[in-house]
C-alpha cells in the first residue's frame, strides 16, 4: 500500500501466461526466417501478394496458399522515430518503426529501420525518406522469430 495525498493506493502486478499456437502458416514463415528467406502468399482471386505469409485473403475471403519467396529489398512507405519508453515494450528506444513495401508485394511489411546513428532526430529526419530503398539485415543467430531480421538498412 502506497500513500499518495490523502488516500491509499494499492499497487499490484498482473502477470498472465499464454501459449499461442503458431499453426502451419506462421510455422512455415518462421522456418523461412531460419534460412534468411521472407515468404509471402498470393491470393487465388485478387492475386495480391501479402507478406507476412498468411492463409487467407481478408478481402476476397479465399485461401492464399501459393507461397512465394519475397525480395529482401523494398522501399519505405512510412516511418516513425520512437523516443520514449514504457513498461512492457519489446524494443528499446530510440528505434524507427517503418512500413516497407517489399519489391513485388501488395502489402506493407512492418519492421525496423536501422544501421545508422539514431540519437539525433534531425539527422534521422534528413536520412530517412519515404520511397527510400532498404534491405533486410539478418541476425547471425536465428530463433524462428520476427526479430531474426535485425532491421532494414538503407541501400547505398
Amino acid at each position, binding site marked *: 500500500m502506497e500513500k499518495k495525498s490523502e488516500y491509499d493506493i494499492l499497487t499490484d502486478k498482473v502477470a498472465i501466461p499464454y501459449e499461442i*499456437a503458431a499453426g502451419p502458416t506462421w510455422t512455415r514463415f518462421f522456418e523461412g526466417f531460419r534460412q534468411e528467406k521472407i515468404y509471402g502468399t498470393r491470393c487465388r482471386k485478387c492475386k495480391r501478394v501479402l507478406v507476412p505469409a498468411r492463409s487467407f485473403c481478408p478481402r476476397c475471403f479465399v485461401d492464399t496458399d501459393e507461397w512465394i519467396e519475397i525480395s529482401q529489398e523494398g522501399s519505405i512507405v512510412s516511418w516513425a522515430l520512437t523516443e520514449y519508453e514504457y513498461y512492457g515494450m519489446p524494443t528499446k528506444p530510440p528505434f524507427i518503426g517503418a512500413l516497407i513495401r517489399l519489391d513485388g508485394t501488395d502489402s506493407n511489411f512492418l519492421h525496423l529501420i536501422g544501421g545508422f546513428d539514431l540519437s539525433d532526430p534531425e539527422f534521422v529526419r534528413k536520412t530517412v525518406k519515404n520511397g527510400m530503398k532498404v534491405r533486410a539485415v539478418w541476425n547471425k543467430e536465428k530463433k524462428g522469430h520476427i526479430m531474426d531480421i535485425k532491421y532494414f538498412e538503407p541501400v547505398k
Partner: protein
Amino acid sequence: MATRVGIVDIAMTPGAESKDNFLDQVYKVTKEVLDKAGIKRADVGTVISAASDVFHGGMSCANSYYWDAGGAFLKNGSRQDGESLFAFIYAVMRILSGSFDTALVLGVCKGSENPENDMLTHFFTDPFYQRQVGLNETVAAALQMREYMDKYGITGEQCAKVVVKNLGNALRNPYAHIKKRVDVDDVLNSETVLYPLKQMECAPKSEGIVAILLAKEDVAKRLTNKPVWFKGYGSSMDAFYLGDRDLLDGQLKQAAKRAYDMAGVSNPKKEIDVAEVCEPYAFQELLWYEDLGFCAPGEGGKLIDSAATNMDGNIPVNPSGGVLATNPYVSRGLYRLAEAFLQVQGKAGERQIDKKVNTALAHGTHGFAGQCHAVAIIGN
C-alpha cells in the same frame, strides 16, 4: 416487431485442443457458415462477435485481431465482452432495427492457449477485498453448492448424476471436448477440488469458435428451407459482492421470465422441448432447472433422479454434453444456441433427441455463482 429474425445456419470447432492458429480457425469457421448458407462475405450485413480481452485470450481489444478473419473487412460491426449470447441478441437487435438484412455472430475463445480458468476468473474480483481473499469462480461455486446442499438436502450423488448424464451425452457429440464414460462413483471418487466440489464436477478449459448466420424473415426463408426463429430473450445481472447476494435466489429466474414472456411461453415444463444450459459446475444444472421453471425450488435433485432431463426424458437437458464436456468460456452461450438450433432443425445427428422439437432454450451464464444470466428461446 416489424420482422422475424431467423437463424440460417451455424458452424463451430470441436472443443479439444487443436494445433491450428487462432486466426485460421476463425477464418475457417466463418467461411464454413457462409458456404453452408450459400452467401458471399460481401453480402453479410453486419458482424457481431463475442470474445474477452487479455484475460480469456491474451489479446487486448480482442476483435481487432480477428476482425478480418471473421469476415468483417470494411463491415459495420461490434463486439460483446464476456458472454456470447449477448452478441446474438445484439445482432438480433440490429436486424430488427431494419438496418441490416443479415448478421454474422461469432463466439471466439481458444481456451487451449490460456491459463486455467481459475486464474482468469480470479481477476473478476475487486482488488481491495475479494481478490485479497483469493476468490475465483470455483471458490464461489463451492460456496453456492454448500448452501444448496444444506438448504434443500441435495446429495452428492444427485450432483454427480449431472456429470454422468452430460458426459454420456457428449459421447455422441463430435464437437465435445471431454469424451469419457463415467459413473456416479467415478465422479465422487475424483479429486476434491474444494469440498464438496469434485474435480469431475468442474468444467474443463476448451476451445470454441462458433459462427451463426442470422437473417430477417424473407432473407432467411430464401437462404434455408428450415429457418429457426428467434422467439425470446432475457438477461439479468446480480449484485457484485458475493456476500451481498442470495446465492440460491439469483437472476436466472428473472432472465428466463423475460425470455418466456417475449416468446409467449407460459408453461416451460411443457413447452420447452429441449434445453441447452450452461453448467460450469455440475450442481448448477440442478439449480438452473428450478430457476428455469422445469421443477419447483429445491426439487432439482429429484428432477435428475426422475431421469426427466435424460436424452429420452420429458425435458432433455444438454444432449450436447453441455459445458461439463466443452467449456470455451466466452463462447459457451453461443455453443448452447448452436446446439439448440441443430435440435430444432433435426440435424443433431446421433445426439438428436427422439421427439419433435418445436421450441428450444439456450442459456448462458458468466460471473461468480451465476452473477449474470442470459436465456434465448428459438423455435420452428
